[in-house]
């Protein structure tokens, strides 16, 4: 045993960054895979680094905004209130309320395609 005051060298216990990230579930992923490193889809830092945000709209006037309930507790009721807010304050904006058919963790390309076709913007809620 080293005496008090003697310096010793120890190892760092922490793992190294891998450049590998987890990703939302594919449509056919089992629900439990969201916390399952074996079945969860993966992304790489290179792939994520290429992601871009979409250009913003000049105005919402006359536009269609999709309101998507992602499925967490209270999401449905909250997004209904968001829809009501638009009705009360921005009647010039058309809203379409949708509830994700897949879980909150799972991709929903069918809905995304619908939004792309019929909408100009989307509000997601409520996470957490």
């Amino acid at each position, binding site marked *: 045993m080293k005496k008090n005051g003697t310096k*010793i060298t120890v190892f760092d216990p922490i793992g190294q*960054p891998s450049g590998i990230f987890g990703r939302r579930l594919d449509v056919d992923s089992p629900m439990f895979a969201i916390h399952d490193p074996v079945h969860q889809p993966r992304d790489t830092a290179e792939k994520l680094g290429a992601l871009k945000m979409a250009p913003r709209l000049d105005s919402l006037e006359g536009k269609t905004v999709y309101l998507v309930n992602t499925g967490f507790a209270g999401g449905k009721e909250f997004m209904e209130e968001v829809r009501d807010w638009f009705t009360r304050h921005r009647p010039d904006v058309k809203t379409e309320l949708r509830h994700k058919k897949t879980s909150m963790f799972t991709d929903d390309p069918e809905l995304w395609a619908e939004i792309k076709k019929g909408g100009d913007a989307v509000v997601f809620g409520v996470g957490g």
Partner: protein
Amino acid sequence: MENDYGVPTAPIVTSRFADYVQRDGRSHGMNLRWTFPPYPVGFIPKEILRSYVDGNDPISGVPLMDEVLFALTEPLTDAEKHPTILKRPARPRLLEPDTEANLHRLFLENGWTDGLPIVLPTEERVAEMLTGTDRGPQEYVGMMSVTTHEERLQYTVERVAVNAVMAGARPEHLPVLLALGESGRPSMPSSTTSFASMMMVNGPIRNEIGMNSGLGALSPVNYANSVIGRAWTLMTINLGDVRPGATFTASTGTTINYNNMCFAENEELSIWEPFHVRKGFKRDESVVSLFRGWTVLGFNTGPLQRMLQVMKSLSGPFGGGTFTFVMDPLVPKALKAEGYADPKQLSEYLINELNPRFKRPDMINFLVVGGEMNPMWVTTDFSYFQSVKIDPWIPKSGIKKDAKPLRMPEAVMCKDGSCGISH
């Protein structure tokens, strides 16, 4: 939607998760335009939800819906047009030399422990630990993360050995820990629901390293069970990137995470095939099987119909339907007398009677452990996830053993020479 479909989005996330999602965005190179209402929004009266929508974002102080409109219409900044991923720096192999007291403080204050005292991973101790396998110290073992989206951390044999030393383990335990590391599964995945884990070892290694499969196997009375279970959580903390509040979000947490219900199956007293054999492994292979759920739902005695009655009365946090029974060896003997000599047959019967919404294999599992002091069974809501072979991590010369293997209490063989505990 932003990248793949070119549609501007305004994500709304409750304020309790503001740090979490902002950090997540930065690590993914995309700083989305978040809006944060108060937390929680679930099970809240409609009038209060309306006040949230009409009110301010408590993080920014700005009217919530103004932020939503801003998110959709304000032109992107240069930083938003050209996002960059924040790269985490590589970790050193060794820390700066310091006194023992200061290093203990460093480990505690950095959150590199479970809060209990650790053994400092000195070069000498880690070198000794590495004698527990033939594999090279820098050989890749796996990667792990407790979160869904954050970057995973990867680790070598040496990093696993470091955490093994910290847990108080010895070289003979290292192959089990390397198999756990190979699985890539954290013992406490980040979820607000506070996941718990359970691990069970089958095969010859159980007795070679003195694991307890008999009396009190799930109690803190056996050295190997205690340190192996603890090491999985230290590995999870340090190799799976546990940072409370940042990456780790268990709202209440669970004390099960301290040891992860680590035990060995009592293959000697069970009349059933060992669990790993039922999963396709050979009897003489050493295997660690991993389970995850939330809670131990209670202990019971009694026949099959009592088992079914209990299952029907317990729904679990999310509807249930998944159960892992931990049962004394006397229970399978009683079930056999009832006509269920095969656990697969038993599982099929119970699933059909329970008739859950989703049926999948392995929804009901049976593990045999204990000292035949009481024909009792414990119900858990744990799911079976994976079994990993330990043998590839065992030295060719066999498990490293001391002249007098450490046992707790002192090793005296029980009647079949296998229990790892005696009186």
